[in-house]
């Protein structure tokens, strides 16, 4: 039962206020027509699905309705950091 710091509301909120929105940093190809079917599928469906550190997108659904990123351990469920959309994670697996 996660306790999540919303970087926009700037305080901790209960998980019930949030939705997980999948893996973070999956940018929409700038020129979709230039993508092969396989490349498009990679954007659309294929995921790293990390066991351990995972960068993911959440939305403060019943709060400020803003999306933000989170680095979370998918085994211990520890939240290592939250950061705004457009920012890069400080905590990464290769550290």
């Amino acid at each position, binding site marked *: *039962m*996660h*306790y999540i710091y919303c970087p926009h509301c700037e305080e901790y909120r*209960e998980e019930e206020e949030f939705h997980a*929105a999948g893996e973070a940093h999956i*940018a*929409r*190809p700038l*020129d*979709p*027509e230039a*993508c092969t*079917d396989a490349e*498009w599928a990679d*954007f*659309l469906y294929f995921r790293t699905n990390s066991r351990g550190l995972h960068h993911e*997108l959440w*939305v403060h*659904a019943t709060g400020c*309705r*803003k*999306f933000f990123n989170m680095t979370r351990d998918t085994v*211990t*469920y*520890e*939240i290592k950091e939250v950061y705004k*959309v*457009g920012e890069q994670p400080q905590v990464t697996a290769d550290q």
Partner: protein
Amino acid sequence: MTQKNRLQSGGRVDRSTPLTFSYNGKQYTGYKGDTVASALLANGVDIIGRSFKYSRPRGIVAAGPEEPNAVLQVGATEATQVPNVRATQQELFNGLVCESTNGWPNADFDVMSYIGKAGGSMLTPGFYYKTFMYPQSMWETYEKFIRKAAGLGRSPLENDPDFYDHLNQHADVMIVGAGPAGLAAALSAGRSGARVILADEQSEFGGSLLNSRELIEGRPATEWVASVVAELSELDNVLLLPRSTVNGYHDHNFLTIHQRLTDHVADKAPAGQARQRMHRVRAKWVVLAAGAHERPLVFGNNDVPGCMVASAVSTYINRYGVAPGQDLVVMTTNDFAYQTALDWADSGRNVVAIVDTRPNPNGDRVAAAEKRGLRVIKGAAVIEVQGSKRVSGVSIASIDAKGDKVVGSVERLSCDTVASSGGWSPVVHLSCHTGSRPEWRDDIIGFVPGKTVQKQLTAGGINGSYSLKACLEEGARQGAEAATNAGFEVAAAAVPAVAEVKEGAAMALFHIPHTKPTSRAPKQFVDFQNDVTAAGIELATREGFESIEHVKRYTAMGFGTDQGKLGNINGMAIAAKSTNRTIPETGTTVFRPNYTPITFGAIAGRHCGERFDPKRYSSMHKWHLENGCTFEDVGQWKRPWYFPKAGESMQDALNRECKATRESVGILDASTLGKIDIQGKDAREFLGRVYTNAWAKLAVGKCRYGLMCGEDGMVFDDGVTSALGENHFIMTTTTGGAARVLEWLELYHQTEWPELEVYFNTVTDQWSTMTISGPNARNLLAELTDDIDLSNDNFKFMDWKEGSVAGVPARVFRISFTGELSYEINVQANYGLYVWEKLFEKGAKYDLTPYGTETMHILRAEKGFIIAGQDTDGSVHPYDLGMGWCVSNKKPFSYIGKRGMAREDCVKPNRKQLVGLKTKDPSVVLPEGAQAVKDPNQPIPMTMLGHVTSSYWSANLNRSIAMGFVRGGLERMGESVFYPLADGRVVEAEICSPIFLDPKGERQNV
């Protein structure tokens, strides 16, 4: 009936307040302060139930949540039945009614026991898996008997008359357990000013101190408890929760507490009171002070009533003033149980012997017992119990130093009670809930909480610290540390003086050897509730079930309602020994929530019945109710479905509504459609990216229909969006899709295209929307507006105008989902009902007819308009729907869905495509969901071409109409397909255009 085992004095029961209760139909008396278990023991009740596999008589063995046998059906009425209540935890109240859960005709005399005795030798672990296989057809029959034999209590058959409650709590320090350690922790933390919650499952605080005769500062420990509780209750930053079990410990220090508010008062909660309450706690720091459970030893016939856990015997004597027998034999591997012998002796009963498995025990309690002249037999053990419905004696024998085998001769002692102690198991349960694995410690012969990522501290028995002094010190220290960590600097509370007791070393012994091998010795029980024996565990390992998880699953050890609190460690020890491994090598035992079982109703809380899920209403709902509307659930909304008049069938009503709309004018409450206000200079660009069609040239004052797809190119929503201004649009969505579409827009704006200047706001609830549709729509509207020129030239189809309707400022959209001349009137919701009623005032002369979703569906189907979610299923793109006209691939930006619908499989020929369907027999209405085939006579499995998505009787066309998917359908106009139905009929239908009425669309343009 006299309470023959009740002592003249002593204990915490109130002898001046007798309580009567019934057990298995007999009346008994107990006292205020009793549990059902202590009252039954006081009354000399030995047999509390029957074991489910062997149907052996069972008695009470423990005094707390670890009790495996005393599991009763409680409840005076059908509606208030509660199955599987632990007698050791149920406080006695006047009029309580309880029964044994197993045993027929009754627990005392039980026929099954003979079958148990006869068949018992076959009921080994896994016997289910090894038999009942032949003949195959018989299994269902066998299973009925197996199911009957299983299960404990029964569910009530009437609805629960009580209600339950939730409270969200936030604490700086959450302390679990109000024994010496927990109380000391609460003192430290409480004095710091931190928000503290102290919860304990028992009716009063004090934990083990309530059961012992230890002194604190020279006075009875309970006096110290009282003084601490008094101080804590003075602090308004401290919340004290008795009768409150912390049943679950979840990630990020979220804990659930199950508080029993009225179960000690009566079956049914007093009027207006919640029966139980769940506290949902988010704690900065947690102190686990849950203590430890004593382990019984595993020996022959150790389940005969009269065999108890040593500390439980002391508890019944010291806390309840009950000595559950006359002649006691104590068997122990440690010093603690000597106290039980002393308690027993001091209660005036006879201690036959203390049988100590250690060759030369030393320690203060041993000395005290010997000083008191009690017989202590060293290096020996009780290898077997005599008696069936009550202990009548024991066989004891010397055992070797390792406790592996019997050495020397067997002596018999007669007694009626056997108290055994194999040492203590810390209550590590909660610490396991978040995935932390307990660690074995040889010095305390038990598991303690393992490493955790939670902000958790532990104090007292849970750490294997069993002396009162250690508990108090650890509690005070950890309470202070928790508060300090939570930001409240504080020193540990001073610890009161207690006598130090010297403990001799305990012996690591779990399974008492017998003169015979385990497989042939009398049954030696490990898990009483599931009838798991030492022989069973050895058999499991012999068969190759070596992982402790396999052993548990194969034997069912630990799967009972006590979750193996007494048995698991003994079982692991036996499994370890029989596979020549140490206990830690064998594995650990990980506990999951709940610590003890929790009422479903309490978990559900108030979210039941009409509060299960919100019902959303439009401003006109009251009118709908008053006008006999039948409603349809659409998402959380209650939408008008149809408006039957007296005596009308549904079809009658629909026919009337449909005709009235096409012939005069009908009205629909369309308020539930999602509405999103879009402002910003890039609004147009944004629309162009999320809709499949073009938006660049939509003039202010105009409306346009749009399709929304996912990146996979599949349609997921649709609706009309109107240009209110150059930089201002209002988008409509499906009723069910509103929230999803808004989040979709926000997702793309916030993550992909933040540079676009646009804001989205929901205005679904802001506007009441009423659609008047039909040839008389204009005439009706004209009577209510004087500032809108409704002429066809000025106010064209797909225009919107602002003006007043019935004197209320309105936005009127000339859009049509029925194909008729239609106006969608939007007014601020505060005026919705007013305008609606005005429309009916003026509408009378046009026979203005209210219609609901069903007529709307029929009318739009006559026009071949789709309903997203009914005619789409997430696997169809616009071209499959024959809606290529709604796709613009000239747009510079690659809108969402464009690439997806260009994938190989999406452009291949012969996909399933949406077409109209005319049954050959116009009177036959195809069932929605019917599957099409080319040749109805082909063998099964048949090749299916697609299914019927929408199908109705059209009163206007006086025939049935349908839409559905047919493989390659758009190229197969005029061909026939066949629908083999469940009732054997085969319906032939012709593929046609889905536009059944007014193909040129003239009616909406008049």
